[in-house]
């Protein structure tokens, strides 16, 4: 359904008012991946790795510096052929508005992602309204139905509430309703549970999983929490400094991590079992942003396995090391 090819997004760091940008942050650098229909993908990595940027690129909140994002709209009925592949990075004008029916986003902060002066009805109906879908009473029915389905029942109680009258979990449910109201093909979820209380997170995650089934939605889940990614996604892609270093089926990647960064990340996650001895986290140095990175492997200065090959060759490309399991490393 979605194929990203060599996606790159560079941000300039400006120096002086009249001088042109001398440095560029390589937030996303030549990233390629697939998001097949029905297979939710978890983009995991630490802060600054570029996962949020990719999420925004996929809903056209940002435009890529280079690369393509090919989107083939799924068939309207099963058995039909899907739509043609379109590079959404190139579309303009009215086509963009049509595209927005297919891609939506759930944001991290349940409170800040809603206009505090508008009520739930307006917030959830907004996508319908700006895209001119349905008459106003149809929109009312659609929104009410959706509110029921996300667990805000009876809908009539919630339609006219302001965000400050809702709890964190309720707000995020409204956000989910808004993302799904146009019936999108895929939804980018940017850390949807990280600002929620622990006991509420399970409810939201289960709701999202259930809706994925019933509404036929595929998620691109952006998160730093591997455990959440495991719970919600069939496939996981691990990012480091703007590049994907490993991607594969969730369980397999967790059982058999191949890239040294993935290994370090996995061994660093605390385990809720008292007395459990984790492996030593095998990584050197400190994280930093990818500003004007040299051509070699991005992980070189922190990699425990770094060798001469890694120093002298360009950044490794993703290579298949197992069924559906790709790794970008010279030494694996």
């Amino acid at each position, binding site marked *: 359904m979605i194929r990203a090819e060599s996606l790159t997004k560079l941000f300039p760091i400006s120096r002086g008012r009249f001088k042109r940008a001398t440095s560029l942050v390589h937030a996303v650098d030549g990233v390629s991946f697939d998001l097949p229909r029905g297979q939710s993908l978890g983009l995991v990595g630490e802060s600054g790795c570029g996962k949020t940027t990719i999420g925004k690129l996929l809903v056209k909140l940002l435009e890529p510096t280079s690369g393509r994002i090919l989107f083939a709209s799924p068939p309207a009925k099963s058995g039909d052929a899907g739509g043609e592949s379109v590079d959404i990075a190139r579309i303009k004008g009215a086509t963009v508005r049509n595209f927005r029916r297919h891609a939506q986003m759930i944001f991290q*902060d349940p409170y800040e992602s809603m*206009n505090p002066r508008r009520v739930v009805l307006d917030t959830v109906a907004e996508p319908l309204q700006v895209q001119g879908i349905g008459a106003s*009473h149809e929109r009312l029915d659609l929104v009410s139905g959706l509110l029921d389905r996300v667990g805000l029942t009876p809908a009539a109680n919630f339609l006219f509430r302001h965000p400050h009258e809702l709890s964190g979990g309720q707000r995020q449910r409204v956000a989910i309703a808004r993302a799904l109201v146009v019936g999108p093909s895929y939804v980018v979820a940017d850390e949807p549970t990280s600002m929620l209380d622990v006991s509420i997170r399970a409810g939201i995650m289960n709701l999202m999983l259930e809706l994925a089934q019933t509404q036929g939605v595929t998620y691109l889940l952006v998160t730093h929490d591997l455990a959440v990614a495991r719970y919600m996604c069939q496939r996981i892609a691990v990012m480091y400094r703007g590049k994907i270093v490993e991607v594969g089926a969730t369980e397999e990647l967790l059982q058999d991590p191949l890239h040294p960064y993935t290994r370090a990340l996995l061994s660093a996650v605390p385990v809720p079992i008292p007395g459990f001895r984790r492996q030593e986290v095998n990584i050197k140095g400190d994280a930093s942003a990818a500003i004007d990175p040299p051509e070699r492997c991005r992980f070189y200065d922190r990699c425990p396995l770094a060798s001469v090959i890694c120093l002298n060759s360009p950044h490794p490309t993703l290579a298949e090391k197992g069924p559906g399991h790709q790794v970008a490393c010279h030494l694996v």
Partner: protein
Amino acid sequence: MTTDIEGRLWVRLAKARLALRGFREAWAIFVESRIGIIGLAIILFFGILIVAYPILMGTVWDRATYDPITGFAVDQAAQPAPPSRQHLLGTDPLGRDVLSQLMFSTASEFLLGITAAVVTVAIATSVGAVSAYYGGVVDLFFMRLADIIIMLPTISLLIVLTALFGLNLLQLALVLGVLSGFGSTAVVLKAQALSIMVKPYIEAARVAGGSRRHIIFVHIVPNLLPLSLLYMMFTVTAAIFSEAVLSYFGILNVRMSWGIMIHTASSSGYLLGGTKFWWLILPAGGAITLLCSAFYLVGRALDEVVNPRLRRQYGR
């Protein structure tokens, strides 16, 4: 399911009820701060003056004696006459009743203030929103314009303008509105608009498919309005005061206002008499001070409504 008309009516009704509740809650917060109530009380008092004037003119006062501009107090020996039973605040050097002048001018002062305020807010909100949204050249232009306006001393500019064109109250209000609207108020509202623009709900609106117009008018402007309302109050203050100063110099094309009252006293030399002719200055000066302060106090109280962080955490 519901039909279109039913649906729309029901939604409108629910929203009206919500608006009412919102107003009541805002009022409750407003009432808590005593300065707000004081300010409002003063404004109300002046409002009573506005209403009382035509009533008095139509009943107790006869036009020949009490008209603020053309009247003459035949019942007094010497002008200006100190306060007496027929003339509660005395008369001015031209024999006109001071109280009548005071009440007559109140309406025009209010109109002046509110016109200036509305014009300011309308312009500043638009400029702020557009500047913040489009950035780049547009922003640069409006901000430089604001810089120039702020740099220029307002009173001098007004003096020049009125010398050239002979401004009356309405024209003065418009000029003040435009100056303030493109000036400091625009800068403040643009800063606020910028802080709104980085909020995730703006991104959410874009992902939903919102056009530029939609985002500006549905999201940015309504969130600017509380702050705009606040600045309206301060503009009223500035307008009334500017008028007083300009009238004091006698250069406005106005026949009667509080400023003119002081001007009359001054140009006839009575200001130098110390406190002997207090009724020529105190009522007008007091009215200006009181009304300006009142709007300022209301503005401060509104600030607490608009800015939740300023509210006191616990009662009393």
